Structures are given as C-alpha cells and as structure tokens.
C-alpha cells in the first residue's frame, strides 16, 4: 500500500460550454484531512464530486491506491476523457464514500435500513451481520435510539449523522464531505461537526468542502483554496487561513468576519 491514496492529475470538468474545473492536481495521503474552501461557483464541490465519479471528469486522471482508474478513451466532444465501466465505478464508490449537503437518505426506509442498504445490496453482507454493523455505526454517530425512525421524522442534524453512518458502514478508505452543514439550521451544525471531528481523530482520510472556516482550521492538515476552477493556494491550515500569501485568498478570507481561529 502506498502512502498516497488518491492522486489527481490535470482534472478538468466541463458542463457544456461551462469550464468549471480547469486542470487540478492534488495528492491525498493516507490519513490526511483536507479542507477545500473557496467561493460559491469556484468549482470546489465539482472537484470533490469527480473523486467518486458523481460527476464524470472531462479530462485528466484519477489514481486510487496507485491504480489508474478507467481506460483510455475518447469523449464525444473530442476531449480525451477516459471511459469507466459501471462495475469499476461502483467499486470505487464503495471505497470512496460521500456525504452530501442534502443528506440524500432514502425516505421509505428506516434509519437502520438506510445504513444496512449498501451492505446488503452492494457488499452482499448477510442480514444479521449487516444489522449489527449498521447498529454499530449508528451508535458511533449517537443515534442508537433512532434505529427504527424514518428520516422524515428526524432533524437535519440527525439526518446528516445517519448519512455519515451510511457512508461509514461501507468501510471506505476515503470519506468525502460536500458542504455537510450548509443546509442545517445553525444550532444543528455543532452536532454534525463533532461527529466529523471524532472521525478525524480516528485517523480517517477525509476531504471536506466547507464554508465553516473555523472548523476547517481545527480539522484540516491541509487547506486547499480553490478559485476559478484551479488550486489557487494550498498549505497547512495555519499557512492558508492565517497567513495567506496570495491576493485572492486574502480577499476571500477577509469576507469572513467571524474568523474563529
């Protein structure tokens, strides 16, 4: 096993004529916690979503554990996009888990069933084993007393914790968080951040797109500031958030009045 879990080279993403990600290189080391920050529309979420192929990269390569994903191919628009089989992508997604801004739980399943679903359908875990693993993960996020509730009956913070448990149940090597607290009421943000923080303590490899700069400061080994679809500035949390070298990073940070670090 190499030290680098994910290596992205020259990642591009276009939506029609809109060029959102314009050549990003990034390496993620095992156990590293990276916070990705930037203004809305800078492309930070899109970069994250390319890592588990929620969005298909228009160009560039992604390596997972030293293995180049996909095969050489030619996209319809003449670009050099690689082609990926559905089975490969599904396998990658079990190894690179994701937590969304909008939770995306299954409303017709109970909390427990939501967390068991991937284990049963994707990993083919026997039901009893899946149940105990799911229960374990839900206990970890503090929801052991909500196993049989439906997501619709939970607060946003609780729903997001279920979503985290669902991702954790698959035992991913890397966890991606796409603005996990952006759609929560302010008083619910804390409980979700505490869970994410606890995962960080476990030494999990995590990438977090966030607007919570205070949290990013304490959470991240490395902060990546994205502007206009490129990595504009990167370094330790201290470097980027406290002593930004570049003008746009400074301007971005200046707009956050509550710099809680």
């Amino acid at each position, binding site marked *: 096993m190499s030290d680098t879990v994910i290596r992205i080279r020259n990642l591009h993403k276009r939506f029609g004529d809109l060029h959102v990600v314009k050549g990003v290189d990034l390496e993620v080391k095992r156990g590293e916690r990276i916070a990705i920050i930037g203004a809305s529309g800078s492309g930070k979420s899109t970069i994250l979503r390319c890592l588990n192929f929620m969005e298909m990269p228009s160009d560039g390569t992604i390596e997972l554990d030293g293995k180049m994903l996909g095969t050489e191919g030619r996209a319809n628009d003449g670009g050099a996009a690689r082609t990926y089989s559905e089975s490969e992508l599904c396998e990658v997604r079990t190894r690179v888990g994701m937590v969304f801004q909008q939770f995306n739980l*299954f409303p017709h399943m109970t909390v427990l069933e939501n967390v068991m*679903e991937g284990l049963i359908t*994707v990993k083919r875990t026997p039901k009893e084993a899946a149940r105990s693993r799911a229960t374990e993960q839900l206990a970890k996020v503090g929801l052991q007393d909500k196993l049989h509730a439906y997501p619709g009956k939970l607060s946003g913070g609780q729903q997001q914790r279920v979503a985290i448990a669902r991702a954790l149940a698959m035992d991913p090597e890397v966890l991606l968080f796409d603005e996990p607290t952006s759609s929560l009421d302010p008083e619910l943000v804390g409980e979700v951040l505490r869970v994410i923080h606890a995962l960080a303590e476990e030494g999990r490899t995590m990438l977090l797109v966030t607007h919570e700069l205070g949290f990013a400061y304490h959470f991240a080994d490395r902060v990546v500031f994205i502007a206009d679809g490129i990595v504009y500035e990167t370094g330790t949390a201290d470097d980027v958030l406290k002593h930004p070298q570049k003008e746009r990073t400074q301007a971005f940070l200046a707009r956050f009045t509550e710099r809680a670090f």
Partner: protein
Amino acid sequence: MEYTWDFKVILDSFPLLLRGLVVTIELWILAFAIGLSLGFAVSLARVSSRGWLNGPAIGYVELFRNTPVLVQLIWFYYAFPIVLGAQLSPFTAAALSLTLNTSAYCAEIFRGGIVSIARGQWEGAKAIGMTRAMTMRRVILPQVLKRMLPAFTNRGIELAKVTSLASLLAVNELMYQGRLLSSTYYRPLEILTVVALVYFVLIYPGSYLSARLERRLAARD
C-alpha cells in the same frame, strides 16, 4: 312511456352475456398485465440518456397516445396482417392493440413517477456503490409504485371500458354479445341496460378502491 318490460329475455340471454363477460375479463387482464410490463420497459428506455433508446420510446408513446384506440384496433385487425403476412384472430388483434395502447400510457405513468423522485436519491444510492438497476429496484420503484397506484387504477378502469370496442372486430366479448342478443330478441332496452349494469358491477369496485386508496395516500403524506 308505453313499454312492457320483458324480464324473461334477460334471463334467457344471461348465459351468453356471462360468456361475453369472461372474454371481456380475459381481454382486460391480458392487456393490462402485459401492458404494464411492457410499459415499464418502455419507460426505462424513455428515461435513458441514450438517444437510440430514448428517441424510439418517445415515438412509440406519442403514436399510441395521439391516435384513436378504435383506429388502432381496426388497423391491427385489417392492416397489420398485410405487413405481417398472416391473419390475426379478432381476439389476438384486439388484445395486441389494447396491450400496446395500454403500455404507452403506462410508460408515461412510470416515467412521471421515476422522474418525480429527487435526483438526490439516485446520488445517495450511487455514493454507496449501488448500480442503476439496484437503485431502481430498491430505492426508486418502492417509492414510485405507491405514488403511481391511483394513476394505474385509473388506467385499468379506462381499459376495462375500452375493451368494449373489440366488439367491432366481432370479438365475442360482453358488448358484442349484448348487441347480438338485442338484435336477436329486438329487446335493446332490457339487454343493453343489463350490459351497462354488468360493466358497472365489473368496474365500480376498482373505482371505489382507487378513490379510497388515493384518499389514504393523501392523508399519509
């Protein structure tokens, strides 16, 4: 109104009407069951992002929804055999056209249901490694079927009524028997009234259940 009702005619014609009813039910169940399955397949093609699946599916649905059922029935009996090079029995032609017609409507119901599920559900499933087929079966359909039940019940009711058009191809279903008997006995008032009542008894329970179901589902949401 000077009219002497003849109820004996009804008793005499009842066995034939019942036989017609059986054919009506056969036609109904056959067209509905296959129409539903075929409609589901068409809806999958319809929601596909691949043009070669999506395009023909749109054409199919629009063709059947924008031409009269009666024209379709007659076309499948008189015109299709020329293309096919083999004669179809009236029942087969009627069953075929009603099935295809139903499948087109069902495809639209399925499609509406499938696209009504928020994109986030697909993404949530995708993110834990589920394939599209798994997601459809475990996440999308269980939610969609509930929502679509009223629409499908309505479709079933509509189809039960439309089967009566098969009488024009001399399929010996309920309406055909009714017309035959009423001209044999010269008693259209008694016989056609009974025919209408039999249809009502056949269809009303479905309408009633559908309305109740709709209310219950509405109350739950």
